[in-house]
């Protein structure tokens, strides 16, 4: 296998990741290449982990892989980085509300090992080293 054959797919991924306008991403997603979209976005975030746009897009993509909790963490990070961005705020609100509803719908007792929650739940002290 020559070097060129390795470089072409890599460049393709890099190219997608570097430009990554929403229409291209949408095209990837609509053609069912969700894993490719995730790889491209993760590559992009590897370059700049503080890019709220790519964090948002990775969240939107991971939702399609049913990775809802991971997606919400990404949106939380994106919202911290770009608190004024209405799309990120709206995505975060939608996913939070949906998760809350889903949590409520799944609240079923687990038998004899129910949690007895104290009234107030202050943050714990730091974890010991």
């Amino acid at each position, binding site marked *: 296998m020559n070097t060129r054959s390795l470089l072409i797919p890599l460049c393709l991924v890099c190219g997608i990741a570097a*430009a*990554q*306008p*929403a*229409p291209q991403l*949408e095209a990837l997603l*609509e*053609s*069912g290449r969700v894993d490719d979209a995730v790889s491209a976005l993760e590559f992009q975030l590897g370059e700049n982990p503080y890019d709220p*746009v*790519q964090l948002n*897009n990775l*969240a*939107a993509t991971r*939702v399609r892989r*049913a990775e*809802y*909790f991971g*997606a*919400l*963490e990404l*949106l*939380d990070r994106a919202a911290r980085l770009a608190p004024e961005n209405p*799309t*990120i705020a*709206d*995505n*975060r609100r*939608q*996913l*939070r*509300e*949906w*998760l*809350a*509803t*889903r*949590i*409520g*719908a*799944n*609240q*079923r007792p*687990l*038998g*004899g*090992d129910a*949690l*007895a*929650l*104290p009234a*107030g*739940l*202050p*943050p*714990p*002290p*730091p*974890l*010991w080293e």
Partner: protein
Amino acid sequence: MEALTRRIAFAPLATLLVAVALLQPTRVAAAAPQALIEQAQFWEQRGENQRAIESWQRVLAADANNAQALGRLAVLNAGSDPAAAQRYLERLRGVAPDSPAIAQAQAVLRGGAGAVSPLERARASARAGRNAEAVAAYREAFGGPTPNDDRVALEYYETLAGTEDGWAQARDGLRALSARDAADNQIALSYARVLTYREPSRREGIAKLAALAGDRRVGNDARAAWRQALIWLVSRPGDETLYQQYLDTAGRDAEVEKRRAELVSRPKPVAPVPVDQRLQAAFVALEGGDIAAAESGFERVLASNPQSADARAGLGVVRLRQNRFAEARRLLDGAVAAKPALRSRYAEAQRSATFWERVRAAEAADAAGDLATATRAYETALGATPSARNEPSIERAYADALVRAGRPEQAERRLRAALQQRPNDPQLLAALSGLLVSKGRNDEAQRLLATVPASDGALRGVRIELARSRAGAAVAAGRLPEAETILKETLAYAPESPWVRLDLARVLRRMGRASEADSLLDAMVEAAPDAADGRLAQAYAFAESQRWYETLAALEQVPAAQRTGAAARLQREAWVRYQVQRAVHAANAGDASAAVERLSAAVAAAGQRQDLASALAQGWAALGDPARAVAELRRSLAAQAQPSAGDRIQYAALLLQVDQDAEFEAVSGALIRSGTMTASQQAALEDLIVGYRVKLADRARENGDLPDAYRQLREVVARYPDQPRVKMAMARLFASAGEPEKSLALTRGLLRSDPENPEVRAAAIESALAAGDDLQAERWIDDAFERGDDRAAAHRAAARLAEKRGRQALALEHYRAAESLERAQNARAGPPMLALLDARGGASDPLPSALRDLIGEQDVPVGPLLPRAPGPDAVPATLPPPERFAGLRLERGVLSRSAEPAPTVAAPTRLGLKLDRGTSTSIPAPSRSVAGAADPVVRLESAVSGWAQGTFQSRNRIGESGLSRLLDVEVAGDLASTQWRGGRFALRARPVYLNAGTVAGANKLLFGTLALIVGENDDLPQSESGTAFDVAWRLGSLGLDMGTTPLGFPIENLVGGLRWTPQFDNLSLAFDISRRAVTDSLLSYAGTHDPLTGRDWGGVARTGARTDLAYDFTGYGVYVNGGYFTLDGRNVDDNTQYEFGGGVFLRALSSDTRSLTVGLNLTTFGYERNLRHFTLGHGGYFSPQFFLAVTVPLTLTGTYGNLSYSAEAAVGLQNFREDGAPLFPGRASLQAELDELAEFEPESNLPLGYRSQSNSGLGYRLGGAAQYRLSERLFVGGSLSVDNARDYQEFQFQTFLRWYFNGVQPVPDSPQLPRIFESPLR
């Protein structure tokens, strides 16, 4: 310099209150606010702001102008209630305009909601060990370098003391505070503790701490700080008393004892050989125990003469005293090498330095868990020293390391050898007996200890351990009372031991004496002399009660230096489990982000620890991801050779939650077979199995397999008859099995015992609807709406109830509301499609709304676009099976279940058996499947639709021309409104043409009064026309109509009626009050003209009431009816009528598309007078005095595609009797005139009256009807029938066209023929 991180340990609230109570009475008034202030500060320091606010408010209640409280309340409320904060700030400005708290509160208020106060930041930084950062935040909070509050000052100074340059300032500040309030032991403690942070002032601090050790409030913390200071202390000769004083006060402590022993055994300083004055002065200082001066002296000599062997040797001894053994050995070796003459003088010091260097290396390796290195280092150290001189503590440490390295035999040999050298050494005896106990050789251990007096304090620890071990063995063997006795005796021997207390509490808890256990644990920390040990034991106790926050708080009280590996392990476990708790809490509060954040933190902290997998699984399950929970637990179980029963039960519970039924059965079956479960675990598993059985029973019931459903529940009911979920399952089964009364009785009982349970309320509504208790169902439905239960389900129940009551429009409203709610819920069922952002900025363009609407909520398939869109779902919509009557039916001996106790599908089709001329009761027709009926909204949309209809009807009676013959042609046009909440209106206009032929010939004698002129009159054609109008209203089972007989007839009448048709399950009732035209003949219907008298007569109307009752036993039924009427017409004698009828019917054939009904009918009626003739005073209607008919009707109805059809045939015998009647009833003068005429003209054969007659004969009726659905809303239909009896024959033809305004109209079970003589809405 020692980096110190210290936080104030605050005494519990109870201690504060006790302290307050102990104050002198004269000080109580002043002390009360102070106690409240301390309480508020306590909560603030715990981070519990709400409680702090409450406490500060209590301070204000006691002292309305307390500036401190006003300031704190302004700060604390700034985040959550800025308006309140502002109010407190204003009050503070008024009370204390110079208070520094004003600036602080203003700063926090400027930060707005969610701002963290500088004080909180300071504390957080201090907790994290970032002391410099904390000090800066404190100063920000104070608005300068000076604290404005004594309590905060303490924590500030202790934090400040931990910084590089802040110690002196902290010491001075605390000294000033201490001087100002010498009675405050909390200040004294802080001051003493800070003094111990530096070597020069450490002894002073130790002395102060010793004085505080007996204090009830701060004693524990003082002892802990005292102990720590002793460990830090660079000891010198004479310090033995410091160690001894601590041991005498606090009891045995291995570390302190070791320090003391080292000091005692330390070699005396060798007398120096001074080479110069400075060297000599250094040796003098060394001799005098002034290590610092000696160190300084030797270092100065070496600075000027680095080759000075004496100075290096002296410094080596200093380092030896400072426990810096490696440096000591290097200096001494160097000195001896440089000056061999010193060898004999320093040989002992060299040996000592080497020995301790190796011991320290062993201890370091041991602490790092490198047991191999540790044991090797211990062996080297001890091997280089004659055994008789070996430190017993080191021998013990070596033995401990050997045991932990898995070499207990070698440890035992080593300890026994050491004991031969030192037979009664308590350290060695303790170590060996402890080893024996750990190996279960309790008897040997006891024999060993028997050689030593019980009063020997050094062996107390091992005696305690021995007792705990014996108690543990008794617990394992289930001998709990024996364990209790052992532990109580041990507790009396060692009341300070938290571990004995913990063991005893555990035993008591297992014996069900939880309150005793709790009180034991409450006193644990106070009883334990070693605070760290007490806190650790307390933490274990909290952990066993799953009180994770308290566990963490107790562990935080353990000084960092005393945090063992076990403590760290417990802290990690408690931390992970507490974070899971917090995640679940956040999830329940709807804060998904916080839930995820906390659970992620727990996952990261748990690492690969399999014992925490179950906690994480619980968290994932609570966060709505049971699949991940199962996966987590499955991985954990796979990694364990012998997973615990508890973990496997939790796994089973999760499997049940994610519907992994087969695996659930396998896991629970294996658990039961294993026989390793405790009683509580068995109960937990059985609880799961009960839930599973209920699920299986419901599934079987829904599939119509009632026997299997009962099989699943039978055992469960026998074992847990009182469990609500079991009762509810039984209620559902009864309802499905056609025993709704039993179902209702069960749910009524459940509702009484658990009225707040929405599931129980839903089940009760179902039962009430199934049982036909509409009033009860209505009350419960209203209740469900009020309480905000599942609104969609409540709407569906309300819709069913409304439909059952005939309120279809209302039912439709409810169904639509339910569908709307369910759509909203379903919209949330799938994850949201999150918007992508364009990397160049901005959201990607969404689809135009019109296109979005087009796509709707359907999934758009991914992948390449196909050339042709796939067709609609190939699977045909399944129609429900034929709806019988709610509940069970017995068919061919097999118990089976109807699809569901569904509401009535369509209004009962009337199958009149007309042989008796309309007097029979309509029987309920079987309702078969109707296209579209599966969806109640579709069904009801069609049912509430209005319609327009045109009908042509022709009726032809054979009879005498001009008299009883009749051709009746009617064309009716109907317009019915859409049904709404208030019901439905309809209008009808009905042009009518009647023709009875011509009165001619002999018939003239029987018409009007023509007999009086012997029929000498022209022929009289009899025809009439006019148009009738009718308006009707109907709501549910109640109908009302009003109209006229055809306007244009010689005689016109107002007609109308009120009809109520309630339905009670299989019982149908009808109550009818009406006034209707009698349409038997032209005379009775329209009236006609008598040419001789010039009068009109006829136009008869029947007015009265009638009741019908039918009961359907499913497959067959009975009916009865009765009525009473009066009849009146113009110039017609009045009449009365009674009627009574009854019969039975049997559905001989019933399938989805057709039904054959056969019956036996009896009809009887009678009139007061016979007025059926056509002379003046008669009404022209059939009015026998007695009529009886017994018929056998046969009716076939069915559908074929869009065609509905019916065919009916009835044959029977009838008998009637008519009285004779005068020619002019009620017209005595005319009748007298006639009699006179007949007398004068006897040849004229004038009739004087009508003869009575009695008649019996055969009668039959044949008829057929059809209706065809031309489109979704357009129908055409017609009927043809012939009714025949002796002297009576009628043919009837009808055709109609009907157009519905809305909905997809179903093909009805049988033709719906217009009834033009009745209400258009009947």
